[in-house]
């Protein structure tokens, strides 16, 4: 019955800072359940984030937690993993943090296929700074810096991750709460770079500017746009218009970076003998 989240949370840290109805809390709970399911050792697990609303998450968690600078989570995390490959490394962060200012680190972590799990909380906006458009804000939408509608095309974060070389890529939404932990569990167990994109809502800075009258409307939208990968095959392009595929989008086996470097060490030591 009731899930014991508290054993993963630092005493006295709740309530969290997120606004009423922010999907980050739902995604965080999914992440906690996934980490529990995988039985991650708290002492041997680093949680790394950048800057932004989602990046406040590690501060609540009773693990080795690192709240880095804006966009830099994947680069710090790469350092941790390379220096101590036996540690589990989990990155969390938002869309702006991960694929705008941190885009270079994100794609190169994918390319290296370094063994970490990166959970992107994609709420389509820079929430912490008051609602400026991000690389995932839909074209035409309103943000505090697109008062006449957003002229920018968008990134599809999951496609970006697949294109950059991540070997496990999955997507779900904050509405699909039980799918969040199922996908993150698969990501954590996957050897290599795993990206799990959680589509999420920011009622405070995105919803109220963009036709959503309530948090519940935003949740319903997440429910409506999600199409499981398996179902999409049977749908026409017209039916898929405006939809987003959910589930495991990509999975492959490719050498993991730290294992590759272990081979470098072997070759170096063999040559120097």
């Amino acid at each position, binding site marked *: *019955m*009731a*899930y014991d989240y508290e054993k993963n949370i630092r005493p006295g840290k709740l309530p969290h800072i997120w*606004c009423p*109805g922010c999907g980050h809390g739902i995604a965080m*709970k999914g992440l906690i359940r996934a980490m529990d399911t995988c039985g991650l050792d708290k002492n041997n697990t680093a949680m790394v984030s950048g800057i932004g609303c989602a990046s406040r998450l590690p501060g609540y968690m009773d693990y080795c937690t690192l709240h880095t600078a804006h966009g830099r989570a994947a680069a710090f995390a790469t350092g941790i993993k390379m220096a101590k490959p036996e540690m589990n490394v989990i990155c969390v962060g938002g869309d702006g943090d991960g694929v705008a200012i941190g885009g270079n680190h994100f794609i190169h972590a994918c390319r290296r296929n370094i063994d970490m799990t990166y959970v992107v909380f994609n709420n389509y906006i820079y929430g912490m700074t008051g609602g400026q458009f991000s690389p995932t804000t839909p074209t035409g939408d309103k943000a505090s810096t697109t008062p006449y509608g957003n002229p920018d095309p968008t990134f599809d974060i999951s496609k970006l991750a697949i294109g950059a070389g991540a070997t496990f890529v999955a997507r779900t939404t904050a509405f699909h*709460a039980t799918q969040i932990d199922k996908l993150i569990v698969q990501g954590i167990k996957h050897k290599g770079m795993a990206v799990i994109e959680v589509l999420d809502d920011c009622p405070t800075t995105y919803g109220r500017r963009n036709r959503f009258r309530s948090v*519940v409307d935003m949740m319903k939208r997440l429910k409506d746009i999600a199409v499981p990968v398996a179902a999409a095959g049977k749908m026409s392009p017209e039916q898929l218009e405006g939809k987003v595929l959910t589930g495991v989008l990509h999975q492959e086996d490719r050498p993991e970076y730290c294992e590759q470097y272990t081979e470098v060490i072997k070759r170096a030591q063999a040559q120097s003998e």
Partner: protein
Amino acid sequence: MSQNKGKAKIEVIEKYCKGCNICVAFCPTNVLEMDGFVVKVARLEECIKCMQCELRCPDFAIKVHDA
């Protein structure tokens, strides 16, 4: 699921609840209600322990226990 009906205890941690209304909106049996800015359990006997309120609560504010 109907066999579970009436055996639940729903705990609302009021100091965590931010009154977002998600749990009220997605409860399939209309157990919950807003009471100002905090959720309250209005019809416990209707609860089927589907856990949707707990799962979707972003604020760690609702727990569904066996009675």
